[in-house]
């Protein structure tokens, strides 16, 4: 148990370096002994800081407080995952808050389970992997486009081939095939319509 630190000590006078050592010891006491007094020191130091950070990021008091509560709850329940050798308490708590904010924002945008913070920053990664699989849309392949292309009427195919594959202009195609430019244009349009139709049927 940690003793000898007066409760009334003002948080803002603690220097970052010594503070990191202190806070590490408190977190260890929380992990090992569920020490509420140690947790209250951590809480009193970090909660107001998290709140102003969150307020700046979210611009909303209620959301900011929700972020503080969720973050500090995680600190209390998962203190055993803190490892002083890997980083300072503030870095650990910052990453927890960042992850919660990331997931909160996605929820606000009505996004279902897609990319979650645990994938990106596995700081508290004891979560069950999500096995729900959304059905995938049918994919159209180049091969299928090839078949559809083959299915076009010969005259339309010649025009499409010259324009899209050989990269010729419509005027060049008209000259080569000795047909009016308007005919090239209408064949192109009809062919594309047809391909589109085939693609829709495919769905």
């Amino acid at each position, binding site marked *: 148990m940690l003793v000898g630190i007066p409760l009334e000590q003002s*948080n*803002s006078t603690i220097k970052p370096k010594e503070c990191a050592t202190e806070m590490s010891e408190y977190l260890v006491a929380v*992990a090992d002994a569920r020490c*509420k007094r140690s947790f209250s020191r951590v*809480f*009193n130091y970090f*909660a*107001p*800081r*998290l*709140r*102003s*950070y969150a307020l*700046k990021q979210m611009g909303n008091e209620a959301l900011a407080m929700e972020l*503080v*509560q969720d973050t500090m*709850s995680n600190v*209390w*329940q*998962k203190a*055993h*995952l803190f490892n002083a050798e890997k*980083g*300072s308490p*503030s*870095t650990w*708590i*910052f*990453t927890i*808050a*960042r*992850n919660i*904010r*990331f997931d909160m924002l996605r929820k606000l945008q009505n*996004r*279902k389970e*897609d*990319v979650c913070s645990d*994938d*990106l920053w596995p700081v508290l990664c*004891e*979560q*069950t*992997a999500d*096995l729900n*699989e*959304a059905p*995938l849309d049918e*994919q*159209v392949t*180049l*091969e299928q*486009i090839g078949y559809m*292309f083959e299915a076009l009427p010969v005259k339309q195919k010649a025009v499409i081939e010259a324009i*899209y*594959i050989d*990269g010729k202009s419509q005027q060049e195609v008209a000259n080569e095939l000795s047909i009016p430019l308007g005919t090239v244009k209408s064949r192109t349009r009809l062919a594309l319509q047809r*391909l*589109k139709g085939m*693609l829709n049927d495919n769905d």
Partner: protein
Amino acid sequence: MIKFHPSPQQITEFVVGSLTPAVSLLVSAHCDMCEQCQMRIESETESLAADMVLEIEESFDESAQFGDMLSQITQAPSSIESDARTSKETSSFKEKSVTIELDGRAFKLPRTLHRYIDKTGNWSSLVGKLWQAPVDLGNQGVANFIFMGSGGSVPEHTHRGTEYTLVIDGEFSDGLANYDTGDFIFMDGNKTHTPKSDTKEGCLVFSIVDQPLHFTSGLARLLNPFSHLFFR
């Protein structure tokens, strides 16, 4: 050797959490493979955490603001036991799905992408030696694993939007540079390129595009009116 990394700005936005989820996924997967960027992330995280600690209003009345939050929080038990149970249940799952397979070859994926193995659709042949398997990112859109067999090439294209590519296994070149396993590649509308793998083993990449590709030559130009169906 990894030569292409996320930009300093992308690293910062990733650490802040403001990079889009899909791009974050690629940055994170790159870091799984790149020690140098892991260190960049670490030091960026430390410095942002230090900034956060400095952010406090001097005249802040704690008791009024936080009410009984502290006592509420400390009523909950430690999660150590439930965590142990959860990790036991999921460990067998984690062990078996760290690879994707194509043509009898198994490719080990970076940690970040493990959860997406089950969200990966079937491989389909695009053209020649080019294979594609779509990955469902929920509302974030679709990413693709693309495999370029030896000599396989993506038709020359440019981008209306942006394309992010991570090389998972192998090497390829695109007329602009040569890329190796772990490289993080960012392309936008200013660049036209023709990705191609010349090595015997071919090359597997993970790629995200936010707008359809625009093909600039050959048979692939036929795809342009429909390219939104391929690369969404």
